[in-house]
């Protein structure tokens, strides 16, 4: 019942759910032996280094370079929006190893230790004021070729596998939402009572039903995977659903709090210690990161429904 007590459980999620499957699928035996056990134990914290100032949801626009120099790659450029990057021991991401290739060709998938010379990590505060993001500045940072995952210049294929799992099942377990929905129901019981509350109750019930839907859908998908099916672009449906459910659920909670919704964490009058406001701010990132929901809807329309790209 890890989720029921309301533990945030956010640190290192990315390492396990994003990078783990990639190293399983594309990593060398040496990489698998070196990285997987400490990742599983939580001894090393990983953070993604995907986005760049000019390449947010558009990974193929990456311009950060990784140029071969013997056994080494020399990295120059900037990465942004690096979730949990402030705490991480390692980063993983895509870099342009062939500057003459266009778009999604010529990228390589690299693992970078935080203590690399030439790498500067700058903390950036999140909406809720926590310093959880980072910007990474690379200036002639040297990364050994043993940290290349998959083939050189084939980082896109490797990353697509990772992105698929980021959008998919692993990132958000259903228990997280069913537990949050149960807490929302409990909040309603404590806070409601006025004559207009049926309207807010309906929002509570819709969120609670949404959490059940997410659980059933995820179980169904898990069952398919267990029977050998693969999950591709359908993972985008999953990501749209949980991220919008999370926002709606916290919206429903804040609506119950009236003018106490704005009271910050830790104040005596903050309901449930301000967890709903905090959760709302966290939830707002959901529709943005790991490919905005606009892009996810394009993926659903084009790859699941087969609509023409242009």
């Amino acid at each position, binding site marked *: 019942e890890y989720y029921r007590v309301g533990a945030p459980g956010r640190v290192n999620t990315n390492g396990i759910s994003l990078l783990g499957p990639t190293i399983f699928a594309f990593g060398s035996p040496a990489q698998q032996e070196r990285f997987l056990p400490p990742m599983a134990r939580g001894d090393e914290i990983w953070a993604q280094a995907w986005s760049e100032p000019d390449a947010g949801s558009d990974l193929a626009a990456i311009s950060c370079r990784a140029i071969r120099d013997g056994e080494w790659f020399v990295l120059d450029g900037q990465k942004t929006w690096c979730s949990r990057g402030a705490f991480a021991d390692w980063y993983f991401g895509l870099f342009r190893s062939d500057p003459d290739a266009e778009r999604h060709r010529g990228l390589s998938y690299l693992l970078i230790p935080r203590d690399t010379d030439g790498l500067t990590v700058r903390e950036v505060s999140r909406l809720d004021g926590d310093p959880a993001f980072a910007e990474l500045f690379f200036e002639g940072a040297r990364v050994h070729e043993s940290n290349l995952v998959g083939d050189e210049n084939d980082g896109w294929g490797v990353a697509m596998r990772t992105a698929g799992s980021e959008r998919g099942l692993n990132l958000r377990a259903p228990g997280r939402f069913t537990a949050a929905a149960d807490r929302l*129901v409990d909040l*309603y*019981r404590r806070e*409601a009572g006025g004559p207009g509350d049926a309207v807010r*109750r*309906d929002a*509570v*019930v*819709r969120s*609670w*039903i949404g959490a*059940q*839907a*997410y659980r*059933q*859908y995820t*179980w*169904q998908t898990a*069952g*398919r995977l*267990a*029977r050998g099916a693969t999950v591709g672009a*359908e993972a985008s*449906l999953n990501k*749209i*659903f949980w991220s919008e459910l999370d926002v709606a659920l916290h919206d429903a909670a804040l609506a119950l709090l009236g003018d106490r919704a704005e009271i910050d964490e830790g104040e005596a009058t903050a309901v449930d210690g301000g967890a709903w406001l905090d959760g709302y701010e966290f939830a707002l990132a959901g529709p943005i990161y790991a490919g905005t929901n*606009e892009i*996810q*809807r*394009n993926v*659903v*329309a*084009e790859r*699941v*429904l*087969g*609509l*023409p*790209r*242009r």
Partner: protein
Amino acid sequence: MDFGFSDDQELFRSTVRQLLADRCPPSVVRDAWTDPSGAASPVWGPLAEMGVVGLLAPESAGGLGMDEVDLVLLLEETGRAAVPDPLVEHTAVAIPTLRDLGGPDDLLAAAARGERFVGVGLAGATHVLAAERADALILQHRDELHLVTSDRFEATPVASVDRSRRLAAVEWEPGRDSRLAAGEPAARVAGAALDRGAVGSAAQLVGLARAMIEATVAYVTEREQFGRPVGSYQAVKHHLANALLAVEFAAPLVYAAAWAVANDADDRSLDVSIAKSTASDAATTAARCALQCHGAIGYTVEHDLHMWMKRAWALAAAWGHAQWHRERVSHRLGLAPDNVPANRNQREQPHEQV
């Protein structure tokens, strides 16, 4: 609980889908709109032969002795094809109700073979579907359930927006000889019947939604505006993605509710209400999306879309509309101050025009 279906269940679904593609094209639905007799459609016989109509009847009565988990995918397919016959009422509700209450063996057997049609009118429903065609109706009167044969009721047709739904106002007198059950057993069976009808119509709503999405995808891929396919516009893509999202997250809830009905689970009514409210909303969303993305052509009765859309509107409100089912969920969660009214039209005075 893993709600993955077995290979046999998936195969049965494919077989039914193929049958309906062959024997229930849109022209069959369109004919049902204009057939004044209200008789069975041409696909009723083949569905009965395949065992679909009597699927829940015991093998001793000539049925397949299967359960709602077996049935739910097939009902979804009948929704997809907009089959005009009232399968939810007959197959999903009347047959198991007769089975559970020990109704007449000959009627159950004939119903299982599709030779006789049995309709249903529970308290709270304004009208009865397909009463003109019925050899018998299971009707609720206060805390009693009656089996009323066609010589004992009078059915006056009432037009639905979906002309293939033959509604009727039914006049009848409850008699001791027509009574199937009373008191607590009747209430229990009537509650189960409502849940059966709700999950059955939810399954059809999922199928209707899928069909409308598929038809719309085909249309917008073909149709061009401003020199490119309508389906290449992001707004259209997002409408369709939203509709797909709604139906893909509704379907597993419907399957889970079918399991709960088949196993008479403790949370049966909760699971059913979750499923029906979500499926009603999903089909309504898909209908709006389909009409908007079709544009003017979808607004004409010459095009087939409107028949699917109107069926979706009707089924979304039948067997408890989305809000009524959410109220039931609310009550189950201990959030509603009062009992949810048994009357699905949710007015203070029960409305027994059945």
